[in-house]
């Protein structure tokens, strides 16, 4: 069977991507799990990885001032477009690494070569083992902007491992939003499962992320979490999906067992057979069928 990739995204944060991903980790066989929400990763809280390999990640460079060579001329101040260079009260120069995007223009323009460019320590990523199979996850350093590059590195590794061990599925827990990290998580997957909630914000954000997926020719299916918080909005959303020919694969009820399972650190479908858990099992069946169809269409 051809290797398939599934990504779980949402647009809006906090709609239940990781709860769903962890349950899929419990339900799916012969797969590798990947946490691409490198900004605020959480899947490890439920999968309890044992880290086997660690990789440093450098997303780019950072400017560093060499004070003894600096003549306080201020030329760097004028060229930095990222507001990363400031002048102290005494006229001396200060570089703020959190704002620096590593463009190196300051370093090129400096008449006394008083600015060095160092490789940025932008985070770390791991290949781990879990009782659900292999798992790749990472943590981006604060203020880093190379999340897309880290996600690409992690995803490349997941494909390498999948091939090596003859796995047939890569399940990606995606980041919120529609920008750089989402686009990097989406590219080349067979199916993007969008999980949203029946709120005005949830629906709006879902439409934006579906538009983003379509922009990159990615196939989309949709589910609603906590659907009974607003039955009217749920119906509205189901109708919208039907009208726009987007597969609607299920709706999960609001269920306090979800946060209970999180506290216990166990994927919901493994924790109990609550209504939410039962629905996720159904959704997983539909996702599998859908992934099989993707193969036939090619």
């Amino acid at each position, binding site marked *: 069977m051809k290797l398939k990739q599934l990504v779980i995204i*949402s*647009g*809006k*944060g*906090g*709609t239940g991507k*990781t709860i769903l991903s962890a349950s899929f980790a419990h339900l799916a066989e012969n797969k590798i799990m990947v946490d691409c929400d490198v*900004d*605020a990763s*959480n899947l490890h*809280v439920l999968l309890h990885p044992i880290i086997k390999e660690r990789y440093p990640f450098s997303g*780019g*460079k950072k400017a560093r001032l060499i004070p003894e060579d600096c003549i306080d001329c201020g030329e760097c101040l004028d*060229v930095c*477009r*990222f*507001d990363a260079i400031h002048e102290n009260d005494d006229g001396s120069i200060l570089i703020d690494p*959190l*704002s620096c*995007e*590593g*463009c*190196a*223009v300051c370093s*090129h*323009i400096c008449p006394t070569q008083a600015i060095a460019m160092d490789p940025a320590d932008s985070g770390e990523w791991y290949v781990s083992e879990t009782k659900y199979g292999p798992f790749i996850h990472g943590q*981006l350093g*604060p*203020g*880093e*902007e190379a999340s*897309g590059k880290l996600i690409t590195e992690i995803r490349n590794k997941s494909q390498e491992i999948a091939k090596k061990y003859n796995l047939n599925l890569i399940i990606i827990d995606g980041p*919120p*939003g*529609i*920008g*750089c*990290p*989402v*686009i990097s998580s989406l590219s080349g997957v067979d199916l993007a499962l969008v999980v949203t*909630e*029946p*709120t*005005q*914000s*949830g629906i*709006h*954000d879902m439409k*934006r992320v579906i538009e983003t997926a379509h*922009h*990159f020719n990615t196939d989309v299916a949709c589910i609603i979490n*906590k659907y009974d*918080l*607003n039955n009217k*909005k749920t119906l509205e959303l189901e109708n919208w999906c039907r009208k726009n020919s987007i597969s609607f694969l299920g709706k999960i009820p*609001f269920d306090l067992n979800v*946060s209970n399972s*999180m*506290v216990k*650190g166990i994927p919901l479908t493994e924790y109990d057979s609550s209504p939410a858990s039962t629905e996720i099992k159904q959704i997983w069946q539909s996702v599998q069928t859908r992934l099989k169809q993707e193969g036939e269409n090619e």
Partner: protein
Amino acid sequence: MIISIASGKGGTGKTTVAVSLAYALQQKFNLNFLDCDVEEPNAHFFLKPKITESKPVLSPIPEIIDSKCTYCGDCAKICEYNALAVLKDKVLVFPELCHGCGGCTLLCPEKAIIEKGQRIGIIESGKTGNINFFQGILDVGQIMSPPIIREVKKRIDPEILNIIDAPPGTACPTIESIKGSDYCILVTEPTPFGLNDLKISVNVLNQLKIPYGVIVNRDGIGNQDVIEFCRKENIDVIMKIPMDKKIAEAYSNGKIISEKFPEYKDKFHHLFDQIKKQI
């Protein structure tokens, strides 16, 4: 004064808090509201401002003047983002990789590069009650949100209160949104995910040296670990909002809690008084 509202984890209630604070305070004075969650701006659903101005945000990308270019390759060498490639008689520009740093234009020995603006999103401005409302919206398919955030933040008025609704996370867009704030409200939920992401946010705010406090939303679910963590680290828990289906339903319909539940109006006024003392 600038108060930003942030969280590591998404969906914890940033926008709920930001719009409730703004709604409560605007009854007393004029303020600015800036939605910097430009990938998914949602505050407008709640504040319902009348948008009066819409302005495109352009990111500068290089344009080569062929008649001046000698194909020396310097621009490609200095570009840290691989946004330029120089062939024998052609320069290729990849706009989606360009960060708009201006390095190639500045350093080209032949002055053969000029900058032209490429649209990456828009800034909308409007008004509702005593709130001057601003939001950035990233165009679908674009990846560079920081330039839009910087553009939104140009609307900050130091003479009045500015409330910033930040994007989730701790990466570049979040930092861009919250830096320069006088105070940051971190919104979290009392679950292991909430705690994990709160720890990362706290680390960032300590580095940025911005005073902050925590609002625990959906209090009652999960466990006590977030409260315990804040106690140990001496972090102020400045408000708790209980897990209440009525609040969740109100949110789902685009209602502001300080408008719908009057007791919250006083709570947010009190919260602001508390924050002022810390600045």
